[in-house]
């Protein structure tokens, strides 16, 4: 049964990755990242009956960090939006030389 849990985790993670690569809307990219985080959480949970209750403890921490990340990330998106009136990452090429 564990194999199926982990398989589901892998599938969701891959979907998330594909989304991050293919989408240009910053908010949707963010959501895809959340999806990837959840996929990882599923792995933790699925393994916790075998490896101990710590798996669930870690998921708790991951959720907390994800909340923090979402807050800061969305704040950044708002700040960027004020500059360029868009959330399309094509407009954010500040990482460029």
């Amino acid at each position, binding site marked *: 049964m564990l194999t199926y849990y982990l398989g589901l985790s892998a599938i969701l993670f891959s979907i998330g990755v594909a989304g991050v690569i293919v989408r240009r809307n910053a908010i949707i990219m963010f959501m895809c990242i959340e999806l990837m985080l959840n996929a990882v959480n599923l792995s933790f949970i699925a393994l916790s009956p075998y490896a101990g209750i710590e798996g669930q403890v870690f998921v708790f921490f991951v959720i907390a960090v994800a909340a923090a990340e979402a807050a800061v990330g969305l704040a950044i998106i708002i700040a960027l939006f004020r500059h360029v009136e868009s959330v399309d*990452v094509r407009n954010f090429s500040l990482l460029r030389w």
Partner: protein
Amino acid sequence: MGDGIVNGAAAGFSPFLLGWIVLLPLIGFLVNGAVAIAARRYKPVPLAAASEEEDVAHRHEEHPATPEPIPATPPAWTKSLPTFVAPGVIALAFAIALVNFFRMLGAGDALPVIERYWSWMPVGDLQVDVAFQLDQLSMLMTLIITGVGALIHVFSVGYMKKDEGYARYFAYLNLFVFFMLILVLGSSFPLMFVGWEGVGLCSYLLIGFWFREKANADAGKKAFIVNRIGDFGFLIAMFLIFAHLGTLNFVEVFAAAPEQLAFGGAVVTAICLFLFLGATGKSAQIPLFVWLPDAMAGPTPVSALIHAATMVTAGVYLIVRSSVLFAMAPSASLVVGLIGALTAIFAATIALKQWDIKKVLAYSTVSQLGFMFAAVGIGAYVAGVFHLMTHAFFKALLFLGAGAVIHAMHSALHATHSPRDAQDMRNMGGMRRWMPWTFGTMGVATLAIAGIPPFSGFFSKDEILGYAWSGARGELPISQGSLFGVGGEVWMLLIGVLLAAAALLTAFYMGRMMLYTFFGPNRTGEAESPHLHEVGASMKWPLVVLGVLSLIGGLFQVEADVPIVNWFAAVAIGGPDALYNFLAPVTAPAAAVMAQNIPAATVATHPAWPVLLAIVIGAGGLLLAWYLLKPAALGVEGEEPDYRRAWERILHDKWYVDEAYDRGVVRPVVALSGFFARVLDRRLIDGTVDWMGRAAQSVGMVGARVQSGHVNTYAFVLVVGAVLALFWFSGGFAWLAAS
């Protein structure tokens, strides 16, 4: 030494404030340096205005029209503080050294004492400590350095009185004494090298002290660069010693060398020759002597202290310190002796035809250093050190006396604003009328250097010549050595003849110098001569003290078994052979090495004729000068007399050594450097670097395309990396390779 001064102290010896001997000059340097920096802002003379070599008296009246934004003269304390601090610290160091000396006399064989301060270079097998080694040799050198140094500091107070760089001068001078003491007290080759380089630095700073004159700055650079060649030899020698013996501490090296190195072998010979190369640089021997005459560009007391009495004798000290090594390499020793003798005669011939009073003394110094090297080369280490000591007395005196004369000439020429050269002997003459004290003391020094008994030079120079003749008869251990297949005694005969000739020339040129300076009619000029005057007290008394030392200095080492010389045994200070007995613990290992490896050197005999010959040579040289030279008609400064004989011109032009070096070394090096600069550096190296820069730029331009700035692309690259990493961790590559 003497029985009278040995108090009933315990046999053990503990050094008294040894570190302070070295520390005091450093404190002096710091204080004077601080004063010099503080005094700088008061300097009213703009850069172009100051000129005139040796212009001691000129400075401040000569430029009355100079705009003076800051108070023209520095406050009085910038002069009064160095006046007391600089000679004070050296005198204090001398006092401490004296205390140590008297303690040492009662100490017996508890030497050398190593006083360790901290670990300096603990690198693997190499353990170098900052530690001072106090034994008889370093004690003697310390006494000479601080004693003569203190006198010269006192003299400088008067000499440099009106110089605007007063504090700076004393800072350098103190720093020099500090490094010189490290040189002689250091307990290992590296520490000695620190002092070695440090005195080189101070020498450079003081030669170029009046650096606004380009010639002076050039002279400083020349000294520095020529010394580098010697330092190269010193370094190579150190590397060889460490490579073969695994240590650089004197005590350990000299204990290990006789056991681990083959007697007369290639290694020890190479070490000695490289050490000697170092010594030729510092001590101005052939082929590296050319810097010393130019070093006279510095203030005259500097010439006395650094370029006559102390620093230039460092090479002799080095060889005596390493006497165990040199005793193991007879052929290297013969090279040392031969080079020394050649230098002695070579420099003496040049001194015959110089007009500049300081140049005469400079070549005389080179020549006398040649005597010392000849002595240590033939294994007469004590004789070398003895001559070093007496030479420190009388040559310092000669330079200070010359300084006094120049000082007087300067004031006289300045009084009438005459542009003539204060150092040219053609402008002097008859000075004894105005400067009786200077004349008297310099007369003593001249008799000493000429080797007239009972002056100090007689004893030391006669001892060296005596050893040379002795060696020529095959009575010295090194006589058994050979060089280029020729036996040691033949070389020693050559050395003896060269030294005897050099001694004759020494007496002659010193007589010439005295004659032209102090006798005959005065040539300074009608208007100027009334302004000639005797120097002040601070300059006079050092002359007198040094005069006394030049007179009696020889009595520290009166050979008991040499006829005629031993007439003075009754008045010998500390008894006959005092210096020999004092230094015996230092030279004993070398003697033991020679005794062990050289079969039965015959006992030295001491006939009377060498002593008589030495006296005849000394007196004859002086008399020859007196009767041959006519001080009345000397021609005009700057214009050379029409030399009728070719050798006169050659001697006056110093055998064209500088020109030869210029053609043979300097210009090829410059040409080669030009080639390297133009072709190798600019084309090859710069070209390569430029090309690499452009290549990196091109690659960067390509790589920059990847940097789209789009987060998706970055995420994709990240995923590719993650996939590869996962593939790797899951053993996918191994699986691919297997299938």
